[in-house]
């Protein structure tokens, strides 16, 4: 009996000692933070995204599937306008590129919590977004246009036709299309879906009058389903600049990327890529 009690005593004391040692080690580890005592400018340079990417040798890019900005082809590789831009950026930096496909509605939180370094995914510059992330100068500009169901939205030819209470409009959650729908069609009922394919299926099933999205998607959809969908008016009704999104407080990276964009625009490469991806549909055979 005493034997058992003695054993128990030893175990309990050992356990307590170990626990206290562990706590001391943790506190010591936290206290020995090496970043205390450096100059602020040095800190900023070391913490900048560009510096860290160069050190690691890989640029992690967050994007979401938007045809034709970024999508998977038949082989499972990523292709698209944004993919080309990201690949060229990584090549110019001399690093590898890694794409992190992310749901669009959670892409800004994912950037802020460090899941990737930069968003190159056709993100429109909006003040609401700018409060959370920094944007570079625009490297592309987009506009909203609408594709409508021929039977359900027969005869619609302007925004006013759509701005009525009995009209249902679909858009993708978290995009500027959703914003545009709320702003320009305040009376209509707006249904938001996480993915474009879900929103489009809703339209094709005749449960919605129209689908709002950035050009050239509505035009492509109307061409793909000629008997069912049509374009009420062909011109985009908004204009929005598209920029890269970065975490806040990173002036070095902003400067680097802004200059990169100026250069890519100046040598005509950006325009050539835009014409290929948005001007035609020659890339469609790669998809299925």
């Amino acid at each position, binding site marked *: 009996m005493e034997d058992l009690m003695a054993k128990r005593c030893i175990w309990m004391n050992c356990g307590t000692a170990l626990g206290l040692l562990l706590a001391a080690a943790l506190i010591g580890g936290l206290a020995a933070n090496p970043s205390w005592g450096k100059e602020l400018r040095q800190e900023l340079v070391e913490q900048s995204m560009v510096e860290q990417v160069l050190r690691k040798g890989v640029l992690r890019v967050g994007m979401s599937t938007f045809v034709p900005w970024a999508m998977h082809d038949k082989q499972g590789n990523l292709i698209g306008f944004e993919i080309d831009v990201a690949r060229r950026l990584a090549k110019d930096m001399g690093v590898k590129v890694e794409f992190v496909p992310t749901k669009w509605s959670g892409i800004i939180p994912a950037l802020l919590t460090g899941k990737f370094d930069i968003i190159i995914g056709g993100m429109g510059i909006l003040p609401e977004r700018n409060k959370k992330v920094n944007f570079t100068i625009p490297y592309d500009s987009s506009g909203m246009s609408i594709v409508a169901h021929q039977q359900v939205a027969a005869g619609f030819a302007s925004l006013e036709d759509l701005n009525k209470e009995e009209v249902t409009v679909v858009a993708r959650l978290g995009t500027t299309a959703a914003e545009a729908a709320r702003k320009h069609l305040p009376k209509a009922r707006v249904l938001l879906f996480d993915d474009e394919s879900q929103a489009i299926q809703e339209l094709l099933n005749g449960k919605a009058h129209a689908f709002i999205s950035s050009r050239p998607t509505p035009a492509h959809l109307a061409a793909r389903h000629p008997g069912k969908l049509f374009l009420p008016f062909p011109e985009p009704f908004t204009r929005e600049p598209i920029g890269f999104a970065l975490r806040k407080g990173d002036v070095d990276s902003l400067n680097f990327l802004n200059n990169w964009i100026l250069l890519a625009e100046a040598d005509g490469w950006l325009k050539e890529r835009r014409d290929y991806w948005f001007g035609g549909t020659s890339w469609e055979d790669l998809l*299925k």
Partner: protein
Amino acid sequence: MRFSPGKLTRFDFVLAALLAAGMIYGALRITTGLDYPWNWQAIPQFFFRRDSTGGWGPNLLMQGFINTIRLSVWGALLGSLFGFAMGLARTSRSPFLRLLGFLYVGMIRNIPSLVLIFIFYFFIGDQLMPVLRLSEIAAYGPVPVRKLLEFLFAPAHLLTPFLSGVMALALLEGAYITEIVRAAIQSIARGQWEAASSLGLSRNQQLWYVVLPQALPRILPPLAGQFISTIKDSAIVSVVSIQELTFQGLEVMAATHLSLEIWTTITLLYFLLTFGCSLAVRQMELRTGKGWA
């Protein structure tokens, strides 16, 4: 105890006829009322693709399927670990351990799975993962280690989200497994504890040598059901962009607009996994002698 097959009565025929009529009506409505251009030929290419070297490699849907298997296996394993530990805590003599178990189950069971996954992924995962340093080993370690980590979990740049997903899944399943273990232990008659104690065994020895061996066959059937639940719950982690089957399916749908074909394919694949699991469970039940023949 064997159930005899029994005779087919008139009621059975009526029921069968009603069911058949319902299914035929459903099939007709789907094929004629849906107005959808079915294109099944485009689906197989998303399972396997030709490599640059000429061999065959997995394409998006197959990669997603394999990731789902990885998520389910690791989630179930880790969840069982948590579940057993917490189940023992809930039935222990220490009030602190009992409180710990109670809080764990109460918190996890009362938060919707989706909300839990978001909270874990965006807030907790980032604080825990750098401590493990696995992402650095996966990116810069020796090549055999890297290949092993990639096979077991995920490629280096997707390792941290994958592990966050596994942890979240394990926490979720662990709460339910805790209750299974607790119920099994508490279902052992009090007399067993008393008899063991009267033989001079300590409390831990009573648990290990007398109670747990009897509780284990009672844990296994609901535990297996929980594994099947894990496979289905792994679809939820697609909302934090972990590249499992549902997420890859949505990506392919976004590019090709083959919505219904891909949803059907995904359903069949999940059914394959869960039904396979159920069959394995059935074999195990028969072997431990607890199942009905």
